[in-house]
């Protein structure tokens, strides 16, 4: 059909570029408005109004913030390690975004006779009649999240400041500990699905009007995974690396202007990514009523579920105080990891006898 470039139809390239752009713009916009939503939601939860001045009910606040940060003075500390200092914000930001490559945000839609699966790293094989995606999608997510720690470690070290170094060390210790527990929670999902492909994991959760979600089969794993992810991305109540009372601003103390904004964006992008992963693994992905008749409803359900989880993150931030550092480590190593291991054993025993 039509023009072919290097053995692949032209539509393949167009669809790929379109998917990347849509997903990227979606995450960027969500990140921008998540900052606004966070201030607004926490404000209302604490019986305040939140931002009100810029635009109607403060709707232009993210743009104003962006412009302000953009025009601030760029400061590189004199004793900083230049290369690492400059590259750290990028290393923090990129893993947060590229995780989206394997997350399916909708079913297969047809554009001008060409079938496009709504997942960036996937294509529809017309001969086999099914979607092929990265068949180690979950491992890809784990691999990328393990790279996120470099941005923070480097930022902490390169700034050449005590607060930054302490923040960086805390952050990396926390991320490494909770990565383990989060990984063990995901193993319980593999054991049920028998596949690492995210498309298939979502497909397996499509039946029984929502009761096939892994949330109902693995409630403990789902709950623990979400909490571990919050700890991994340094959100409250686990935001110790940025504990203002102890460490000024943690690893980004010495950063200013757009480089600070990049860390800020990375934090919110991580929140979006973690919500998207939780939705895909435990909340049925893009599944919902009537998706078979109207495939475009898939992304709508997906976005609704992701936004709900982002709301939950903000809700937690408004409600819970910060943990102490030893409590955090105790929770990670002595509560979550043993519980996740028990969960794997129980899943194995039940799976063997059913």
């Amino acid at each position, binding site marked *: 059909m039509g023009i072919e470039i290097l053995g692949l139809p032209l539509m393949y390239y167009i669809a790929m570029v379109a998917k990347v752009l849509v997903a990227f713009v979606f995450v960027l916009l969500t990140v921008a408005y998540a900052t606004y939503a966070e201030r607004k939601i926490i404000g209302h939860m604490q019986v305040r109004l939140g931002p009100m001045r810029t635009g109607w009910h403060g709707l232009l606040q993210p743009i104003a913030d962006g412009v302000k940060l953009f025009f601030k003075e760029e400061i590189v500390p004199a004793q900083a390690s230049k290369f690492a200092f400059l590259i750290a914000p990028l290393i923090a930001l990129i893993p947060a975004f590229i995780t989206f490559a394997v997350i399916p945000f909708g079913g297969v839609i047809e554009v001008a006779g060409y079938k496009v699966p709504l997942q960036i790293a996937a294509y529809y094989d017309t001969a086999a009649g099914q979607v092929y995606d990265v068949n180690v999608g979950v491992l890809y997510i784990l691999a990328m999240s*393990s790279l996120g720690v470099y941005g923070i470690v480097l930022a902490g070290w390169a700034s050449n400041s005590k607060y930054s170094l302490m923040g960086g060390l805390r952050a990396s210790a926390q991320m490494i500990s909770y990565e383990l527990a989060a990984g063990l929670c995901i193993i319980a999902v593999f054991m049920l699905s028998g596949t690492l492909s995210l498309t298939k994991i979502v497909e397996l959760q499509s039946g029984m009007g929502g009761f096939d979600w892994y949330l109902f089969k693995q409630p403990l794993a789902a709950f623990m995974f979400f909490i571990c992810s919050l700890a991994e991305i340094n959100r409250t109540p686990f935001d110790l690396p940025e504990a203002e009372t102890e460490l000024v601003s943690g690893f980004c103390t010495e950063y200013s202007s757009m480089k600070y904004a990049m860390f800020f964006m990375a934090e919110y992008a991580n929140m979006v990514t973690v919500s998207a992963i939780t939705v895909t693994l435990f909340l049925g992905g893009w599944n919902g009523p009537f998706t078979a008749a109207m495939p475009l409803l898939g992304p709508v359900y997906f976005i609704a579920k992701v936004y709900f989880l982002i709301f939950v993150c903000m809700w937690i931030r408004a409600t819970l105080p910060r943990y102490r550092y030893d409590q955090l480590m105790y929770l990670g190593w002595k509560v979550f990891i043993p519980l996740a291991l028990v969960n794997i054993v129980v899943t194995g025993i039940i799976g063997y006898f059913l």
Partner: protein
Amino acid sequence: METLFFLIITLVAIVSAILVITCKNPINSALSLIMTFFCLATYYVMLDAPFMAAVQVMVYAGAIMVLIVFTIMLLNIRIDASKKHSHKLIFGSIIGFFTLLNIAFVLMRSRAAVPTGPYSGDMIKNIGHTELIGKEMFTNFLLPFEITSILLLVAIVGAVILAKKKI
């Protein structure tokens, strides 16, 4: 398409591998090493071994390099730019050259050049790389797998004992 991609990745891999040994700052060397590991992971993907690629990034780039970066940071190594070790250059290049010859010889002549056995490329594509590794590991290679696990357990217990002041 794949050849072009391979060439680009190879260029990045070689440049970052050279940077590992030429960078004066040990942290920058470590970063280049991470980049090299990442390129190796890309090779695994191109060889239809996605599981190996994911594990490569997770274990080498994600875990081992974090440890190395930590060590460099906490030891706070002084950057010593003035010293130059030129006398090791000749020996190093001779050893490197013979290693290269050796690798080339092995790749051209041995079984690695013509893969035989039950696992063909088509089979890996149809059944899946992860599934095949899992099946082999838990049937034919169960004993080595268990021995490795015990070895790791010993290492973990040893680390705990070393770190604890009072047992």
